[in-house]
């Protein structure tokens, strides 16, 4: 299997035959892997974290007197110099408005912008680049689907199924649209592993279901959902599936054709790209039937005083001047990630994920949310947790001030989930491929110190 190959080959990062994201071999679902627990240490080799760190200038600084340990990647990722260069290059040498220009700069900008679109399509194995719509971020992409597809397809009594662990951006737009159309939102709860209950979801799908909105990887629980299965069940009743892939696209191979997802959204800034751009993948036949979301230039065909005709997708959904430089930056990020190989990134992060989880378990009175990793259950490289009697904000503040460790505390845009878990807030440490085991060690050491400090005051 894939995973055997990964472990056995010497891991000199850029030489070993990474499977490219678009090849058929890496479309295997996450769950078919059994990630070896931390035993898979590559003796004497440089880990991915160490080999990529030099590419990220921001990581090499001191914060409040200590070295920065950046563990807030689920909130946003850092950018490699390749991406920064691409942005600078764009603005310095060929910045120009796209699509309508005749002159050299404009043509170049348009080419690069459309090339970026192709790169995104290839990255997630979409069949055509016209299925990629650039948006401001994943949130806007979801809103696009809600207002464009939702308003024209939902009728009173139609059901939309979500999980209680969804990010606010996957819930709120649907609340708004449901109110307008009379559709009903139904929520799947968590099972005993603290993962959205897939069986319950299956049971909820009926002929009234028109849409299922699910995350691929949870930004709080670290759990992964079996999207292919969910899609099969949904399609059997004629429902569509919108996949929130914000936490999956940056960390593993995602293949929209393999998943057969109808819509998929992700943000550039979580996958080493710049902020200000994200994308929606939508199957061609769906996009073709959808009315515009925002109106303006670029998305029209002809404009008269009393009416206008609209462009074909994806332009139909890209009103106004887009974030050109940023989209090109996203393209550069994809190049960088592909250069390493998403499979490799995924495997490395699996190791780190298990290591993080193990070490966190050693902290007394800690409660980690989400499933316990095992052969069948894989966790993403993030842990949301609470330490008894210590407010997560206190933890995060002290970790930052005294140790330079950056984690997040709050509800992580998942208030319903936190309400279900019975807490106001949680702390969260999330890793990316440029983190190292040493980062985790430092985090745990600092956390122990922090916990002792606060406990000494009780």
């Amino acid at each position, binding site marked *: 299997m894939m995973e055997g190959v990964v472990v056995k080959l010497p891991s000199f990062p850029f030489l070993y035959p990474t499977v490219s994201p678009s090849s058929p071999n890496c479309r295997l679902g996450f769950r078919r892997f059994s990630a070896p627990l931390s035993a898979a240490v590559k003796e004497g080799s440089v880990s991915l974290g160490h080999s990529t760190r030099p590419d990220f200038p921001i990581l090499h600084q001191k914060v*409040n007197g200590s070295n920065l340990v950046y563990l807030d990647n689920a909130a946003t990722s850092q950018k490699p110099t390749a991406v920064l260069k691409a942005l600078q290059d764009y603005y310095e040498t060929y910045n120009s408005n796209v699509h309508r220009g005749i002159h050299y700069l404009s043509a170049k900008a348009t080419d690069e912008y459309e090339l970026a679109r192709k790169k995104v399509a290839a990255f997630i194995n979409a069949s055509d680049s016209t299925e990629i719509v650039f948006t401001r971020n994943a949130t806007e992409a979801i809103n696009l689907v809600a207002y464009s597809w939702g308003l024209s397809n939902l009728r009173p009594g139609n059901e939309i199924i979500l999980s209680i662990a969804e990010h606010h951006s996957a819930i709120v737009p649907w609340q708004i649209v449901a109110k307008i159309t009379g559709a009903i939102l139904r929520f799947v709860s968590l099972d005993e592993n603290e993962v959205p209950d897939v069986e319950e979801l299956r049971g909820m799908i009926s002929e009234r279901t028109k849409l299922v909105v699910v995350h691929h990887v949870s930004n709080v629980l670290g759990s992964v959902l079996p999207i292919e299965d969910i899609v099969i069940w949904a399609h059997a009743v004629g429902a569509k599936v919108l996949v929130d892939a914000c936490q999956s696209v940056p960390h593993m191979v995602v293949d929209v054709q393999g998943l057969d997802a109808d819509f998929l959204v992700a943000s550039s800034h979580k996958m080493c790209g710049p902020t200000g751009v994200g994308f929606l993948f939508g199957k061609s036949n769906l996009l073709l039937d959808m009315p515009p979301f925002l109106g303006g230039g670029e998305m029209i065909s002809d404009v008269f005083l009393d009416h206008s005709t609209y462009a074909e997708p994806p332009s139909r959904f890209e009103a106004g001047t887009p974030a050109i430089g940023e989209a090109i930056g996203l393209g550069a990020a994809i190049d960088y990630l592909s250069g390493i190989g998403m499979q490799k990134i995924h495997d490395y992060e699996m190791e780190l994920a298990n290591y993080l989880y193990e070490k966190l378990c050693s902290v007394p009175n800690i409660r980690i949310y989400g499933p316990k990793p095992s052969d069948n259950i894989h966790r993403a490289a993030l842990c949301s947790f609470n330490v008894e009697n210590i*407010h997560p904000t206190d933890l995060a503040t002290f970790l930052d001030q005294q140790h330079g460790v950056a984690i997040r505390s709050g509800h992580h845009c998942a208030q319903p989930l936190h309400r279900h878990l019975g807490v106001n807030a949680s702390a969260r440490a999330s890793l990316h491929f440029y983190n190292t085991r040493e980062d985790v060690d430092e985090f745990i050491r600092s956390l122990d110190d922090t916990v002792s*400090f606060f406990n000494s005051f009780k």
Partner: protein
Amino acid sequence: MEAFVGIDTNLERSRSDLPFKSIPAATHLFSRWFDSSPLTCALKHQRKMALHSFSSARFCTSKFPICFHLSKPSKFPLFSHRSISFEKIPTKSPPPLRSSSTQLQPMEELPPKLQEIIKLFQSVEEPKAKYEQLMFYGKNLNPLDTQFKTKENKVEGCVSQVWVRAYLDEDKNVFYQADSDSVLTKGLAALLVNGLSGRPAQEILRVPPDFAVLLGLQQSLTPSRNNGFLNMLKLMQRKALELLIEAEKGNGAYGNGQVVTDNSEKPVENSNSDSNVDENSGVRLSSQKSNEDNSSGLGSRGMRIKEKLERELSPIELEVEDVSYQHAGHAGVRGSDGETHFNVRIVSKEFEGKSLVKRHRLIYGLLDEELQTGLHALSLVAKTPSEVEAK
């Protein structure tokens, strides 16, 4: 969870158009109030100080657009309808947060206990020791009764939950109580409670948010913490202002027929009813998500109740008190805009010869419309003049 109760200081949400609408409102509030106040010229001088210090302290800058969502001029019944001229306050453009001490109000003008606290923090170099000091304050903070952990008392913009309660004592000094589920935030709250309690409202209002720099607490300057600490300060200052205005109203300073408070009953002055004061002032102004209600004691329903009872029963004593906050969260209140539960004490000749039941029926009859539109409960004390004299 975060319902926004008037203070919208979440940095991510600040909009550039907001502060410029609020600045006139705030200065309007102060200039009007001070102009028509019976207080002496000393206060007028203080006003100039207050306004000036507000501008220099960036109290109403773009980052903190709350000012007070108190007054839209048209709805403020206490002010007369003279044409309003806005005093142009020259506001400097906001200096960067880590500004030099030249921007700050001289320390001598801060409340004395606050000065002590600042000095203490300045003498402690190590950040860890500062945290310990904060936590020490927090540990020794007087507990806040659960009944005061209301929406009106909650500080917005905090990831942790923080509540602040304010009340006046006999000498019109403001006292605070606070609580939080986060130890560090509780420490910050305790710092403010200790530093500001027991001082007159005007002095509290003049404390500039910048003073946090003097503490040398890094965390009070980082954006997320900043929000919390500054929001706390703002809430405390806002409550001080409300109490002050309520106290003024209690003096019968405004001859507006709407507001009838008998001189023998001044709930604001009464030292026994600290909680009374808090209810009246603390609750009303900040109670709801909307800004529509701006009179500093009763909202529109409260005013209507007063009006109707006055008109129909010509009472010699009438006291209407909004205690809706005590019922926040219960079924009768949910979905309403507040103003659901009132205490009414009324002394009128009209009650002569009527049994208690009849008196109550009479009142309920008069307030029927209110009862149909969201008024949930009335707690009534209805007496005749002779009964009151006989006491």
